[in-house]
């Protein structure tokens, strides 16, 4: 009793006598612009551990610091490049500790080089990106280039190339100067060679092809494909370096920079085919940032889809299966073997969706993708619930990758770099009966079971037609003929050299098939109404292809994500593992005169979303998209004094140079209602005509 009383008295007077101290870490500190730094403070000598954070010099030129100690540097480097962060004890406002923070230049991010083709000799190229600091310079193949800083999003550089380099692809990176000198992780490239040579395919063919193999045609790529032809372009694209997603260390917690990079890559990426195909894989092997909602989780997964876009399908299957991000999304990570004490069973989620959605589907297929039927005319299931429970056991025992320096546990803490790892004693070692009665013997390791199970699925005859049909739907058209599916599935089964699952061969087969090339030479003069190579552009493609056609400049500060969100498609946030839309979605028969037609993208195209598409085009053509998206209408408005010339330019940019007379008449009506010849009038004419063209169903349904 007495002691307590004494303690209480002491406590009452504690502030007057105690030695209160504040320590702050990290100290000293340095941080790159465009990132942030989390400080922590430790207060000793008092039970009141709170501190208030302050910043000197005061004002937004120094950046901001949150009540929790998170310091965000300013957008522009202050002079001098230091600020002082101070933590003050709330219990003792006279007690504080300060840390000097050295501000470093941002990490440069490089999105594109323009032009993509340079002639032999001296050329000036424009480099677009973000985080460029004054004094930044470009490096071509290791050689620094004479570089002019235009803005934080643009540099110009002089490239000197020699005749021996003709045909070479020169990689370019950007390096910011000190303080904090850093090179861009991104690499763009320019190709040395005549920017125009004899055309081997027409503009109509090249443009139609680029709606399938790229995010629509832009002027430079169109010219290039006309020059090299479709097959050569595919070869180049298979070899083109990857336009990466930003390093999670540079993005903060939100995925908006990752989303913005999707559009930067889609509009400017020189690996258009890889970007397009990786996005298709992401719509088949779906994870959603509804759950995988930080760059730390999402970016490594996007990296797998990019890396494996042109690999073997079996490689893609394994890399996706062991991705900690997918493991988290479909519950294969920390999937415990059956536990009698808790009465739990292995989680069935990944077992089910890997087969149902990613590889074979629910029903047995013929080579041409049509359903196999039993004697009674019913579809034949590929597996049953027992098969699912057996596969669920295969996928037990895996956990997050072990962090560097940590020790493997049954349930490793969340970590997303590298493949998941097995914790063998948590793996179900009983025997398992898989597809077509294949039996895994008891006693195998998690890795042995996994490899054999993935082989069992990979070799199922459904995979070829299942994947062929979906790739065709994503790249070419919603209603491929069975013969087209069979041709692509055959290549999946055997690329001609006995290899199964060769995705380069499969993609070539998809894009060069006569059915994909239907429409190259005119809008279906004799084709069926179903137009097998037609499909609705999904919202993110509408955005990207309009911007490419307009020659817009986009960088990572773009706000394009919101445009497609309003049409029901937020990039990287499909609502479920079933993607934004289902491959089997039928267009309501009321709108197809009773013909039964698939139209996966139409699942998003509700009547109200169709209206919203007009309004999205309105925002793009007439609105302000912010500094991250710059549209220069000059190439079109400069022609507006001659309405027919303007119409022809729009036809070249958006309708393969084949705009039908009725569409031309509509555009001319909109143009001719705007009288005058001023620059403002010419711009208004160009905008009106482009609005009518790219909001139309004729444009929005590729065909």
């Amino acid at each position, binding site marked *: 009793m007495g002691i307590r009383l004494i303690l209480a008295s002491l406590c009452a007077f504690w502030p007057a006598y105690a030695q209160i101290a504040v320590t702050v870490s990290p100290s000293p500190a340095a941080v790159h612009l465009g990132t942030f730094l989390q400080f922590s403070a430790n207060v000793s000598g008092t039970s009141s551990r709170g501190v208030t954070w302050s910043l000197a010099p005061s004002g937004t030129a120094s950046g901001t610091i949150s009540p929790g100690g998170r310091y965000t540097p300013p957008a522009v480097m202050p002079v001098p490049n230091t600020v002082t962060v101070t933590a003050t004890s709330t219990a003792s406002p006279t007690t504080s500790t300060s840390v000097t923070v050295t501000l470093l230049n941002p990490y440069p991010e490089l999105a594109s080089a323009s032009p993509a083709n340079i002639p032999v000799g001296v050329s000036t190229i424009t480099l677009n990106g973000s985080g460029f600091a004054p004094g930044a310079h470009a490096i071509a193949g290791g050689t620094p280039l004479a570089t002019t800083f235009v803005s934080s999003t643009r540099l110009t550089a002089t490239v000197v190339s020699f005749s021996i380099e003709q045909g070479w692809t020169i990689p370019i990176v950007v390096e910011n100067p000190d303080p904090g000198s850093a090179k861009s992780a991104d690499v763009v490239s320019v190709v040395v060679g005549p920017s125009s040579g004899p055309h081997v395919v027409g503009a109509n063919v090249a443009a139609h092809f680029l709606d399938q193999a790229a995010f629509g045609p832009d002027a430079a790529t169109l010219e290039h494909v006309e020059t090299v032809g479709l097959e050569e372009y595919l070869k180049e694209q298979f070899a083109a370096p990857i336009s990466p997603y930003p390093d999670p260390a540079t993005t903060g917690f939100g995925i908006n920079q990752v989303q913005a990079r999707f559009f930067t890559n889609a509009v400017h990426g020189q690996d258009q085919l890889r970007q397009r195909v990786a996005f298709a894989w992401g719509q088949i092997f779906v994870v959603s940032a509804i759950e995988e909602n930080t760059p730390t989780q999402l970016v490594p997964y996007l990296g797998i889809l990019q890396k494996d876009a042109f690999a073997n399908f079996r490689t893609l299957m394994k890399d996706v299966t062991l991705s900690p991000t997918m493991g988290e999304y479909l*519950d294969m990570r920390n999937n415990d073997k059956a536990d009698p004490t808790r009465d*739990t069973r292995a989680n069935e989620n990944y077992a089910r969706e890997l087969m149902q959605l990613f590889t074979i589907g629910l029903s047995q297929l013929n080579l041409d993708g049509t359903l196999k039927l039993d004697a009674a005319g019913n579809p034949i299931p590929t597996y049953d619930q027992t098969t699912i429970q057996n596969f669920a056991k295969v996928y037990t025992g895996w956990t997050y990758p072990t962090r560097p320096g940590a020790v493997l546990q049954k349930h490793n803490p969340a970590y997303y770099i590298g493949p998941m790892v097995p914790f063998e004693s948590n793996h179900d070692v009983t025997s398992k009966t898989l597809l077509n009665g294949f039996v895994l013997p008891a006693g195998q390791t998690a890795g042995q079971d996994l490899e054999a199970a993935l082989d069992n699925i990979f070799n199922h005859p459904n995979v070829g037609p299942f994947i062929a049909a979906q790739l065709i739907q994503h790249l070419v058209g919603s209603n491929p003929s069975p013969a087209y599916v069979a041709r692509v599935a055959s290549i999946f089964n055997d690329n001609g050299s006995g290899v199964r699952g060769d995705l380069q061969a499969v993609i070539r087969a998809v894009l060069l098939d006569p059915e994909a090339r239907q429409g190259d030479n005119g809008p279906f003069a004799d*084709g069926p109404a179903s137009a097998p190579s037609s499909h609705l552009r999904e919202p993110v493609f509408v955005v990207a292809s309009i911007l490419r056609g307009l020659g817009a400049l986009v960088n990572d500060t773009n706000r394009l994500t919101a445009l497609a969100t309003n049409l029901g498609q937020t990039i990287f946030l499909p*609502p479920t593992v079933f993607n934004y839309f289902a491959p089997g979605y039928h267009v309501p028969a*009321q709108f197809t*005169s009773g013909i039964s*037609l698939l139209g996966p993208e139409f699942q998003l195209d509700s009547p*109200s979303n169709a209206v919203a598409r007009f309004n999205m085009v*309105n925002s793009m053509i007439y609105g302000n998209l912010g500094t991250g998206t710059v549209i220069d209408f000059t190439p079109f408005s400069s022609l507006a004094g001659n309405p027919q010339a303007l119409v022809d330019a729009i036809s070249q940019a958006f309708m393969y140079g084949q705009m039908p007379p009725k569409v031309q008449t509509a555009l001319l009506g909109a143009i001719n209602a705007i009288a005058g010849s001023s620059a403002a009038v010419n711009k208004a004419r160009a905008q009106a005509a482009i609005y009518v063209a790219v909001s139309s*169903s004729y444009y929005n349904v590729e065909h």
Partner: protein
Amino acid sequence: MLIPSRRKFLRISCRSLGTLGAASLMNRFSQVNALAQSSCPADYKALVCIFLFGGNDGNNTVVPVSTPGSNPANSYSKYAQVRGGLALPTAGLNMIGNSKGDQYGLHPSLTELASLYNNNRHVAVLVNVGTLVTPLTQAQYKNQQAKIPSNLFSHLDQQTEWQTSLAQGSGATGWGGRVADAIQSCNISDFPTIISVGGNNLFATGAQTSPATVTAGQVLGLQGFNTSAASAARLAALQSLLTFDNGVSLVQASNGIASSGLNQATVLNQALSGAGGLTTVFPNTSLGQQLSQVAKIINVRSALGMRRQIFFAYLGGFDTHDLELNDQGTGLAQVSQAMKAFYDATVEMGTADQVVTFTESDFGRTLQPSGGSTLGTDHAWGSHHFVMGGAVKGGDIYGTFPTLELSGPDDANNRGVWIPTTSLDQYGASLAKWFGVDSSKLGEVFPNLANFTTAPPAFL
């Protein structure tokens, strides 16, 4: 597949395109309708479907506590034993009774629904309802002696079957759409009977009718046009391309959908512009805002010329393979709060007795948990659902509660997968009958209904 040549293609009707600003409400959406019924009621009624995507776990939605009257085999301790770490403590449950003197507990997040059940008696619970082609015993299921729903346990297929009420699969129209086919002609205007605030879906798609859609928060109608000559010319150009048939079906489909959207927006804008607001405050959640939009449209039912309306709303996030205790609670709280606000809004509008709201979901979930760092459950079958409205004989539980026992009498396999004892057809037909679909037409709307000869649940 037979593909008609482009010459045989029938043009999508776009007859009202020239009158975007000032069309009458009449005859704008009319179509030949073979399903239409001849007798029409003159009052107003609405059905509101709330689809819980992912498969809501019924086992933790309605928990047996003391149930000697409805299923003496069940008890809280048996439930808790199998559910293990997923068992909800009794202390948090919202207790409800039934007419047999039993005690059940609704999920702790369902406070508002429990209150409507207990105090207002305007909420009923229908237990173990699911997709069925015919009544099915456990033996019939295990020996495959009767028609079994196609692709059980698959999200997409079971969502489809809940929307089509055709458990054998391959349905091209939804049961809501077929109800609309039957009753569309009873409305004074031919604005669509169904309005989806949840985008395109099969539930709302009929053979002859298709739904209007409204997205909460999205601008209704075209932006960027004014009264200038240039603007008018650009609008005329836009409209001329909506009627341009280049022979490609999907281009025509896109035009038809866009034309519908423009017409619907015009009509809705016209009706909504004259309406006063509602004072009921809706939660600022996805479902809250969807149901707020539904209430605003019901509020202008007279201006729209509607006697019968069906609405489709949804909430995702119920596929609780892990983190179930957290995620299901979040989802059900949103459901309960939004439904309560909607009920209050119907009271405010004087339509509480004329609006029935009901839930659907892919399937229930296994009684037995699945392992992992955080517990969840896998895909199952029969589950429990809510019906709300002044016309509902609420405060009671309908249907047969399954015995919560692994490999027990109601289990389709060994993890607690309930073979439904009430079919979706019976559930839907009860709703459709109240809504005013002729008894003679119920068999067309629910083709499997005739397979079920026991009396449907009498919650209305």
